[in-house]
């Protein structure tokens, strides 16, 4: 038996820390006071601390962007820094993809492509970009703590103090997740901030987790992604919203949910104080929500529909309004919101009773995707919420009812009761340019071929989808005993698309008798009432009025 000794000769397990120290040592001359580095020295700093082949994260959220650091990374000497492996939740900026064009980055693991979706697909097919995988947010965050831990992270915050403490405030989003994963495996974290101050409103990220702070020449870019102008909501979207409220929200008494980004869910939000009130649903639905601060929620909040809203990110212009409603939103001791994408997605995955959103295509089996043949758009957070979380163990009325309606449950669990998340797709049967939403085969298959993906990118799988709402009515897919019956229910609400034209009248009649399909008439929804007069706010200006002047819409939404 070997003698234990203090002189440990086993392989060293602290090489990352030593390497980090060496890199920071090389950067030492670039530092000013404390952790401050002047923006002029940014490229030099990046060259000092990044090595070829590193896993690097540029904070690319759904909303806020470390844009200055992304542009600076494009300016490094590519003979020294190349083959980077980028891991980041979103790549919406041109500079994110320029890294691949410029030969600085080689591999990408991400969740959401946004406006760069076309370039992602193009670069993959040209061999400029090697795709790891397209993730959901939570999945990618999980891998930050598993096999995709960033060696260097380039993040952004509103403010820093001289010790490197950060205030991320309203748009905290992914920052805590990225910093924790990076720093606690001895990585390097560099923050761009809008201003460096003596005292922060509050500390969102402690300074000893941050290596360098740079005041960027311009404030970071934030996209008002979740602002929908009520002026653009159509009568058909209002009809769909009425069907959703009566056929699903009321039918199941859904209290907790996430609303997708589209105009349909904005219409639902704006119908709560009008049609929702008329149906007597206040207090019975929509009491707990996981949502960005949607401006279209203001009328419902002002009429006391909502108990709590936790946010993935912020929304430009909603700062003062949100701060004034601390009973509803999650507000720090300093009086401003703290969003957090990882926590909101966790709630979205495990705790919500319903996800409702839209899509570009639904196939005849109920699989849906927003992918087109030439764009790798990614999924963002929709699939985390748009699926049945099998690990869920707590019960609520809506969840239990949705599960108990599954005729096939006994085939899997015998007599054991179980609930199911409501996953709803609300679509008009034809989209823009008379493109059919219901299709035989998703364009995602073509994309998989064009971009060499292992799988067609599916946003929501058919077995997770429980309800489809179209202008033809509601299909209760969770009430279908088998795939044949699901396909028939999908046909019955697919209108005049090729899929819908295959519906047989006698079959649809049987589905209606079995309450698997309900038309507007069956639900007692009068389509002639579906007009903009139903909306609690018809314009952005109305939202400002509802907010008592606290909502300050971004310039592009102002028409006065």
């Amino acid at each position, binding site marked *: 038996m070997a003698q234990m000794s203090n002189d440990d000769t086993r392989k060293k397990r602290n090489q990352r820390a030593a390497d980090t120290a060496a890199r920071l040592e090389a950067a030492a001359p670039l530092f000013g006071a404390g952790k401050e580095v002047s923006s002029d020295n940014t490229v030099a700093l990046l060259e000092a601390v990044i090595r070829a082949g590193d896993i690097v994260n540029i904070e690319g959220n759904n909303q806020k962007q470390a844009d200055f650091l992304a542009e600076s990374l494009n300016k490094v000497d590519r003979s020294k820094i190349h083959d980077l492996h980028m891991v980041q939740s979103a790549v919406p900026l041109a500079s994110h993809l320029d890294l691949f064009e410029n030969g600085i980055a080689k591999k990408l693991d991400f969740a959401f492509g946004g406006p760069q979706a076309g370039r992602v697909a193009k670069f993959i097919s040209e061999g400029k970009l090697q795709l790891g995988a397209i993730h959901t947010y939570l999945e990618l965050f999980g891998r930050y703590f598993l096999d995709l831990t960033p060696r260097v992270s380039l993040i952004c915050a509103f403010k820093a103090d001289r010790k490197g403490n950060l205030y991320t405030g309203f748009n905290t989003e992914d920052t805590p997740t990225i910093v924790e994963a990076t720093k606690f495996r001895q990585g390097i974290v560099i923050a761009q901030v809008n201003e460096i101050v003596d005292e922060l409103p509050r500390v969102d990220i402690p300074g000893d987790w941050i290596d360098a702070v740079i005041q960027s020449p311009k404030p970071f870019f934030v996209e008002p992604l979740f602002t929908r102008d009520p002026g653009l909501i159509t009568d058909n979207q209002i009809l769909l919203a009425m069907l959703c409220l009566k056929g699903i929200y009321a039918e199941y008494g859904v209290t907790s949910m996430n609303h997708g980004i589209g105009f349909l869910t904005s219409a639902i939000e704006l119908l709560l104080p009008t049609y929702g009130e008329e149906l007597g649903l206040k207090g019975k639905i929509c009491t707990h929500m996981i949502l960005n601060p949607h401006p279209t929620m203001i009328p419902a909040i002002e009429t006391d529909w909502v108990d709590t809203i936790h946010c993935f990110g912020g929304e430009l212009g909603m700062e003062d309004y949100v701060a004034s409603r601390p009973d509803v939103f999650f507000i720090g001791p300093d009086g401003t919101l703290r969003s957090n994408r990882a926590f909101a997605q966790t709630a979205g995955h495990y705790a919500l009773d319903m996800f409702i959103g839209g899509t570009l295509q639904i196939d005849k089996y109920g699989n849906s995707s927003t992918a087109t043949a030439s764009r790798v758009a990614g999924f963002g957070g929709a699939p985390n919420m748009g699926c049945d979380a099998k690990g869920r163990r707590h019960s609520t009325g809506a969840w239990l009812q949705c599960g108990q309606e599954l005729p096939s449950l006994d085939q899997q669990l015998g007599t054991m009761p179980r609930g199911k998340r409501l996953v709803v797709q609300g679509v008009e049967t034809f989209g823009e340019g008379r493109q059919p939403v219901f299709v035989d085969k998703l364009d995602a298959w073509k994309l998989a071929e064009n971009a060499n993906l292992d799988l067609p990118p599916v946003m929501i799988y058919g077995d997770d989808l429980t309800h489809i709402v179209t202008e033809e009515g509601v299909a209760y897919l969770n009430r279908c005993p088998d795939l044949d019956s699901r396909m028939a229910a999908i046909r019955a609400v697919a209108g*005049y698309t090729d899929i819908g034209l295959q519906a047989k009248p006698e079959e649809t009649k049987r589905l209606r008798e079995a309450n698997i399909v309900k038309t507007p008439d069956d639900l007692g929804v009068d389509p*002639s009432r579906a007009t903009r007069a139903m909306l609690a706010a018809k314009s952005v200006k109305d939202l400002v009025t509802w907010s008592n002047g606290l909502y300050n819409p971004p310039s592009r939404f102002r028409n006065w």
Partner: protein
Amino acid sequence: MALHTVEFDIKLNTGTITIDVPTHTGVVGSSDMEVLMEPKDLEGGVSVRIVTPVTGFDDLWKRVLDKFVNETALSDTRIEINDNNATPAVVLLRLRQAFSQATTD
């Protein structure tokens, strides 16, 4: 390329409803349409004329109009549509609005 015109007659034996007054509904905005509906003796039938910049949807127009005439039991009516790429959902909505206006005015 000139505008595309689709014309057809719909004759259902079940048609019993006639409209009282000629009516005009809708605006030819993008993805929208307008419709004129006028009472006309067509031996119980309905005649339809659609003018649209879009080709290749003649069957779809026929199906949507069939459904509308069927559900309303409309008869002895002339329908004229100026279309600017309206989806079937919008077409049905405008037709129903026009019908309700023509039968309640």
